[in-house]
């Protein structure tokens, strides 16, 4: 199922070297990570060296070279959230999930990421799970929020 989607994306951008980032973004969105073989296909189809695809894939945080978890957990580490205790929230979430930012757990349940200013500064500190915002978050409440996710 996903293989078809990926092939479709690659075909859409075949022969367009300027579209590497677009292609990788769509594949990441569909597949949740970028397998090496797929990156090689992208390189061949779009006509760019593999090292360039690799550089782009490793450059950006949104691309993952290892499979991501079912739930993406972002803790905002922007300046306002930081002032209001964002670091302590991150510590707590790291403790609960057993992850450091950038990691995914072995059950592929959670992926943890440090977000830098997600734009809801007035209700910081913020925890965002699968795009859902939990504002005015405290370390104490974090466990209850994460418990809801399978």
């Amino acid at each position: 199922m996903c293989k078809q989607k990926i092939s479709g994306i690659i075909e859409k951008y075949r022969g367009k070297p300027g579209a590497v980032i677009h292609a990788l973004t769509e594949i990441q969105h569909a597949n949740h990570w970028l397998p090496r073989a797929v990156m090689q296909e992208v390189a061949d189809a779009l006509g760019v060296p593999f090292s360039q695809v690799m550089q782009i894939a490793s450059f950006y945080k949104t691309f993952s070279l290892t499979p991501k978890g079912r739930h993406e957990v972002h803790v905002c580490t922007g300046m306002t959230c930081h002032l209001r205790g964002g670091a302590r929230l991150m510590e707590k979430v790291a403790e609960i999930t057993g992850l450091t930012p950038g990691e995914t757990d072995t059950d592929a349940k959670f992926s943890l990421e440090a977000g830098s200013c997600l734009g809801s500064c007035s209700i910081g500190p913020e925890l965002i799970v699968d795009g859902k915002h939990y504002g005015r978050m405290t370390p104490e409440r974090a466990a209850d929020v994460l418990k809801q996710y399978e």
Partner: protein
Amino acid sequence: MPRLQTSAELEALRAKILAGRDPARPSIAVCGGAACDGLDSAAVAAALAAEIKNQGAGAKIDFRVTGCHGFCNKGPNVLVGPDDVCYFEVKPEDASEVITSALKGEVVDRLVYRDPASGEKAVHMSEVPFYKHQMRILTGDIPRIDPTRITDYIAIGGYSALAKALSQMSSDQVLQEVKKANLRGRGGGGFPAGLKWETTKNAPEKTKYVIVNGHEGESAAFMDRAMLTGNPHRVLEGLIIGGYAIGAQQGYIYTRHDSPSMAKHITAALEQARELGLLGKNILGSGFDFDVELHFDVGIFVSGESSALMRSIEGNPPEPRPKYIRTSVSGIWDKPSNLNNVETWANVPEIINRGADWYTSIGSEKSKGTKLVSLSGHVVNSGVVEVPMGTPLRTIVFDIGGGVPEGKAPKAIHFGGAMGGSIPIDLIDAPLDFDGMAKLGAPIGAGGLLLMNEDTDMVEIARYLLDFLVKESCGKCVPCREGMYQMLKILTNIIEGKGRKFDLERLADLTEVTSLGSLCALGKTSSDPLKSMLRYFKSEFEERIAAGSQTT
């Protein structure tokens, strides 16, 4: 809707839309901005919509979900027309009372604003202290429109500036008007937009591009996103006018990938504008062809830097180029490209409609117009604020912001995120403007104003900001990549009590060389926060170093 062939047809459409609307009719505007959304305003909106249906009042009351109303920490915000009654912290359970009273022209007393100190009520927007001291030229329309309906934007006068520019002014005249207005870039540079436009216009290449930088990576700045999500047409109109003035055929909007509603609103705006012929070939019969593509970043701060952003649009990694290869002359695919911030473009329609003379009557001597400020931190009232340039910081912090919560004393004000600086609170009477604030060491940047209370550890803030930039450096040049990293190490040591006597000397060398030697603005300004901390709060550093060397 049929394609508009002339400006006259646009006016006819506008009249038709207005004829079908009754300004005296009650209306409900629910804020769907980032913060209110995080406080579940969607549930409030759903409850209100359901209640309207229940009461069979669909024909008697207008309902819309809008972008950011501005008073973010008091959300979910609901604005009730026609008298601009402001309700705060609205819950889904309040729906029935809100609708019933709106239909009767009454007010739900418990939902209105109350001053935390005096308990004084303020029912209408113009009375609420947060709004009273603002001049909401750019943001005032956001609660009045549904951003996914172009007809709403047209109803409030949208695209009249574009029609005026295309039908009554030459491209040169438009450019001269913007120059005369002294519109300065609002992304952080403060560079006169008109001059940039002119450089691009005069570049010999025929193919030219105009770009909206909606990346907004600056920490604690959220007003560009509010603008793009709440009134994308305003920004788009400015961009099309700019394209006309400069002679560009293609525009790009470059923004963050992490806001689905913003993506949705901009996409809808582009589609609807195209449908009406406000984008595409022969816009309003003027002979001007122009279209816009939407691009998303992939999650790195440096891609907000103009030359890096252009690399990203090309599909390359966002590595910045040195500034002496000016992007106005050689930008995307080496073609002349004019990049401006969201807020800068949003100012253009009003400048064309009301004229440069009107615009220059607002603001201070060298900084004209209004400025969007994202007010946050240790402040009672936080959100998106719009004030004339030259407004004293005291007004923003106390009159609008309501001061510091929990009875604490304010200590410092920080501008510009990781590339800005902090000033101590005793400089609070300084006016908000580009040049004065830069001289004080706290350039306003994109306008994120962070208030810090007496408990704030300035050494730790300096370290935190460096840590942010270290993670965002592209890594190409040595002074930024290695210099910042070493600064971070030294600050971390100081904080951990391992500071040494020569640390301040090493920091001084590092800040100097990183500022002079870095390739792009990220590296060049990376040490500015630290420099401002050392300028105004040096004793905190010295104390930590002294304390550390006592224990080692």
